[in-house]
């Protein structure tokens, strides 16, 4: 998984590390993705399992934070009801830049089987999403894979967030 060499100095026997700012910053960002402890429905159970010892998110530098002000990633795990959408967006707004969003499970992606008046038909109606994770509910391995894909995406990005264009960014 580690795509960034960390023992640069040992290569030539010199106490020098050569890299670019983008790589250094993205190495830091991608290896300390702190998601918000935020579960909406049954997908949250899988998210909790991913965080616990068996699947162990901690080894990837992913530690769930209880405050949106300390979080980088928002994992929308479960059905987002229309009543709650306001608060989900408020939590997203409270997160500091840079921030990323994983939409976990069918309900968050498209509304899933809740094709009713009370469910938001896809969280991308209110929040710009980076990774769409299919499944009902996705297994913890799948969530890990989504997180690794997000790490890959971050490593491709520029350290200056203003230079990044999000293809799926439909909202401000």
């Amino acid at each position, binding site marked *: 998984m580690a795509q960034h060499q960390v023992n640069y100095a040992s290569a030539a026997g010199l106490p020098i590390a050569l890299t670019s700012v983008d790589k250094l910053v993205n190495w830091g960002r991608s290896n300390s993705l702190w998601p918000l402890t935020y579960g909406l429905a049954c997908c949250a159970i899988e998210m909790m399992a991913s965080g616990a010892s068996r699947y162990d998110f901690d080894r990837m530098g992913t530690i769930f934070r209880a405050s949106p002000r300390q979080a980088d990633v928002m994992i929308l795990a479960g059905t987002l009801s*229309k009543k709650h*959408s*306001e608060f989900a*967006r408020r939590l997203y707004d409270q997160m500091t830049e840079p921030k990323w969003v994983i939409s976990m499970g069918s309900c968050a992606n*498209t509304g899933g089987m809740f*094709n*009713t*008046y*009370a469910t938001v038909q*896809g969280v991308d109606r209110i929040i710009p999403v980076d990774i769409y994770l299919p499944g009902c509910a996705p297994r913890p391995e799948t969530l890990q894979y989504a997180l690794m894909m997000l790490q890959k995406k971050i490593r491709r990005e520029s350290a200056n967030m203003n230079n990044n264009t999000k293809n799926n960014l439909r909202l401000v």
Partner: protein
Amino acid sequence: MRKYTPKDNVQGKSYYTDRFWVAPRVPRMEVEEGSHFANVLKALGKKAKETYIEIGTLVIHIDAKKNLEIIKILKEKCGYTQCSEQSAVDYLANDGEFELFYQLLNITEAKRIRVVCRLKKGAAIESITPLFKSANFAEREMFDMFGIYVNNHPFLKRILMPDDWHGHPLLKTYPLHGDEAASWYEVDKIFGKEYRDVIGPENRDPSRIDRYDTKRFSRVGYEVPFGADISEGEKENPIEYSETILVDYTKDSGKQLDERR
């Protein structure tokens, strides 16, 4: 102007109904002399309009104006100390009325009673929260889902839907996918009405596939680069199976048994 559609019954109907299907009805039994339910009816006297027993439950039809009075008798004189459920059924399309019901339970006798009354559209019912605390939430839910007002309720406010929701979802006239206010609720609330054009209407078909969208969809055997233009058609990309790891499907790998075992 949007096209007018009749709104008497906008909820989905089953697309096939058997002409000869007769819905099974639960048999209704008379109250036996000297039974527990007979004593209950005696206590109520003439206030009970129509009474019968369905699956061991005594059903009592009453006048909607006397609901508090009658349930008080049932609680204090007949021992029905629990109100397990209270709600309504929408029969507005049939006769312009709601059917309200109260499910009561007598713990010592292990008996149940359903008190049923009819309420005209727009009429209010008296709250039974002085008798049963559990009716507080049940009546709020009934108000939320049907818009039936409850007199003398301590805190009559929506319980499930947001306070600024428009409409009452359990009415038969309420579409399953929501009315216009419902379908734009989150957009209006978070961004404002001017963002409706930016975000667009809801896509309520989760299995929608765009044939020419190569950013989100990919055909097995016809893979093309991300975002490529395939409006002119795409080249076939035959599936290749591994010859070493998996079973070799390319050759005649099957074995026909020579004789039956």
